[in-house]
């Protein structure tokens, strides 16, 4: 017994580096500039909250957010044009963050999504005036008890929670690091950085505040669980490989790492690797809302303020699938024979259960939530392909899907009655007769979700299923096509409801939005049609960006 312990001491002493040998860290600020710009804008937003008078905060916050996000997108394009997406791609910040094609593509998508989402966050024409002041969809004061005197006072005073903009920016910053994280601790930290602001944002709805707070608590509790599971997996993987860097773990798995006695001890037992890898993947599957880790999605999507739902549904999925891709393609390809059958099962369950349960939904936000679960399954089919085509198809699908989702949720904010948004599907009956334009736009988004040709949804699904079939997953593709057909049923049902049924008397009215939401919806339609009519350019772009750096 003492012998074993003593040998641990000696190996530890052997491998220890003297303190003066620790190299001074080096940070490539230019290559990390997109993330740094977003975080800088977020910090500036906090200063705006602290120092500016209440009246001028809204304009200042909107300006800071939009400028920051636009500058970050410019920085991403500059990096990609400089060749960091292909030839010059490398790992920055002492091995913590990868700057490569998939990372830059996904970061660009996230920043654009956030830019459009910031417009819907800033919308102030939809809610009726509160005591003569324009208000957005966020609570007057987050800390007041719903229905209390204090809340009424806050509403009368015309308070608005302008902190949502810095919160959005912090979430975006975390989401940008998430798919670029190149070691497990950066992965975990960025997960928390984007999750915590999202929990807060979920709780801040102006209408139906109890529902919103319930959603936030559920999201927080389940999110904390999944973070803990991911962290436990990180610990086990570290126990297995003795390193947290993606490349290092992959080397240990493939057996190309330099063997030390300590490493030989831990790698003799595969269970650390298998359990650890599975737990990290579970943490990520929770964030992409794959079955059986999808339970939070409908409740949270329904309760959260609709602009937040749109942002969360689009950007979280992009970030989490990016991280999942990197994990499976860079760290765990050596044990693909172990994870592929499991991921097959998860993908099939996600597609089928998402599509079937969506059929029974009567609330439009819950319907979109289950549809997002089904879409997670389709994207997983592309992830499993484990080929460059798989990566590029998933990148394309994510870009296409996120704009459709943003647009669809932006339309949901427009259909209102006295109680706020009218989300029950029966209230949408005959919408096409009352406001043909809004109904037509929503129909475009639904057709894109269903994957009808000439929309981005078709190109995305085609690319993903093609990659999956070439990867040998033909049964998966067949099940995917069948569940697409089931999903198409309920999308078409909503279209029929909107256009071919009589409007109810006293039904909801369609609010006329300001230029902000109009821009957001127009951007959604434009991207949906552009990616649907001419997908080849964007598929090529995704194809060029599909090589991970290690």
């Amino acid at each position, binding site marked *: 017994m003492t012998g074993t312990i003593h040998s641990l001491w000696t190996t530890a002493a052997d491998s220890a580096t003297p303190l003066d040998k620790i190299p*001074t860290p080096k940070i490539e600020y230019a290559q990390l500039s997109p993330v740094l710009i977003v975080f800088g804008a977020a*910090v500036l937003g*906090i*200063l705006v*909250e*602290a120092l500016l008078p209440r009246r001028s905060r809204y304009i200042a916050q909107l300006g800071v957010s939009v400028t920051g996000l636009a500058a970050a997108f410019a920085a991403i394009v500059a990096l990609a044009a400089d060749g960091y997406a292909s030839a010059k791609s490398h790992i920055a910040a002492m091995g913590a963050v990868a700057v490569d094609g998939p990372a830059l593509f996904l970061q660009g998508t996230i920043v654009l999504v956030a830019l459009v989402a910031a417009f819907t966050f800033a919308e102030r024409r939809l809610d009726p005036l509160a005591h003569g002041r324009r208000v957005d969809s966020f609570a007057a004061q987050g800390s007041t008890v719903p229905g209390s005197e204090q809340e009424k006072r806050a509403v009368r005073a015309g308070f608005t929670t302008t902190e949502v903009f810095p919160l959005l920016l912090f979430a975006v910053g975390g989401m940008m690091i998430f798919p670029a994280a190149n070691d497990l601790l950066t992965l975990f930290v960025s997960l928390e950085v984007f999750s915590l602001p999202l929990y807060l944002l979920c709780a801040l709805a102006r209408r139906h505040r109890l529902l919103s707070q319930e959603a936030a608590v559920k999201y927080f509790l389940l999110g904390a669980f999944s973070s803990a599971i991911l962290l436990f997996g990180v610990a086990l993987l570290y126990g297995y490989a003795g390193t947290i860097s993606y490349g290092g773990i992959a080397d240990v798995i493939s057996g190309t790492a330099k063997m030390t006695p300590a490493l030989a001890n831990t790698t003799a037992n595969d269970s650390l690797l298998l359990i650890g890898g599975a737990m990290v993947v579970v943490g990520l599957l929770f964030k992409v809302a794959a079955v059986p880790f999808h339970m939070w999605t409908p409740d949270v999507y329904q309760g959260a303020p609709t602009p937040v739902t749109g942002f969360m549904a689009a950007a979280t999925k992009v970030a989490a699938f990016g991280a999942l891709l990197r994990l499976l393609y860079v760290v765990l390809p050596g044990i693909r024979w172990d994870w592929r059958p499991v991921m097959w099962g998860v993908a099939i369950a996600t597609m089928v259960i998402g599509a079937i349960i969506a059929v029974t939904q009567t609330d439009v936000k819950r319907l979109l939530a289950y549809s997002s679960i089904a879409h997670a399954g389709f994207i997983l089919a592309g992830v499993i392909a484990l080929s460059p085509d798989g990566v590029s198809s998933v990148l394309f699908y994510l870009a296409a899907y996120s704009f459709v989702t943003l647009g669809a949720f932006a339309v949901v904010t427009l259909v209102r009655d006295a109680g706020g948004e009218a989300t029950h599907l029966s209230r949408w009956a005959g919408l096409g007769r009352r406001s043909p334009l809004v109904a037509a736009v929503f129909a475009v988004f639904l057709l894109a979700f269903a994957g009808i040709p000439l929309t981005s949804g078709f190109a995305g699904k085609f690319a993903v299923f093609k990659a999956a079939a070439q990867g040998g997953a033909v049964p998966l593709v067949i099940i995917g096509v069948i569940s697409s057909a089931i999903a198409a049923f309920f999308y078409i049902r909503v279209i029929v409801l909107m256009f071919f049924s009589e409007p109810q008397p006293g039904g909801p009215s369609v609010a006329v939005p300001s230029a902000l939401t109009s821009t957001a919806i127009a951007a959604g339609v434009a991207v949906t049609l552009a990616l649907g009519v001419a997908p080849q350019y964007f598929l090529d772009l995704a194809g060029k960006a599909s090589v991970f750096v290690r």
Partner: protein
Amino acid sequence: MNTYVPILVLGALAAGFAIFSVDMARRTGPKRYNRAKLDAYECGIEPTPQPAGGGRFPIKYYLTAMLFIVFDIEIVFLYPWAVSFDALGLFGLVEMLLFVLTVFVAYAYVWRRGGLEWD
């Protein structure tokens, strides 16, 4: 397995000591009723009143504790840097300034929003 024996023994000893102490205190200590003993423990200060019939409870202590942790963590980072700042050079100085700046921004927010006022 053998490597874990010491830690298991340590755990058993700790549990045994805890049970023994609590039991001994119960058997030998005097029991005199005092209202203050039944109050919630808040660092020895008089407890903040609980709301009647549920509802909100004051979070002053939590706020103070959170702020304390923020500045405590700042010190945790500042101290090792101060010890070896010459070795870290300009890089360390810049990073440390950035770090302190973000903490100060948070501090400015808390201060302007009245987070430092007790009532």
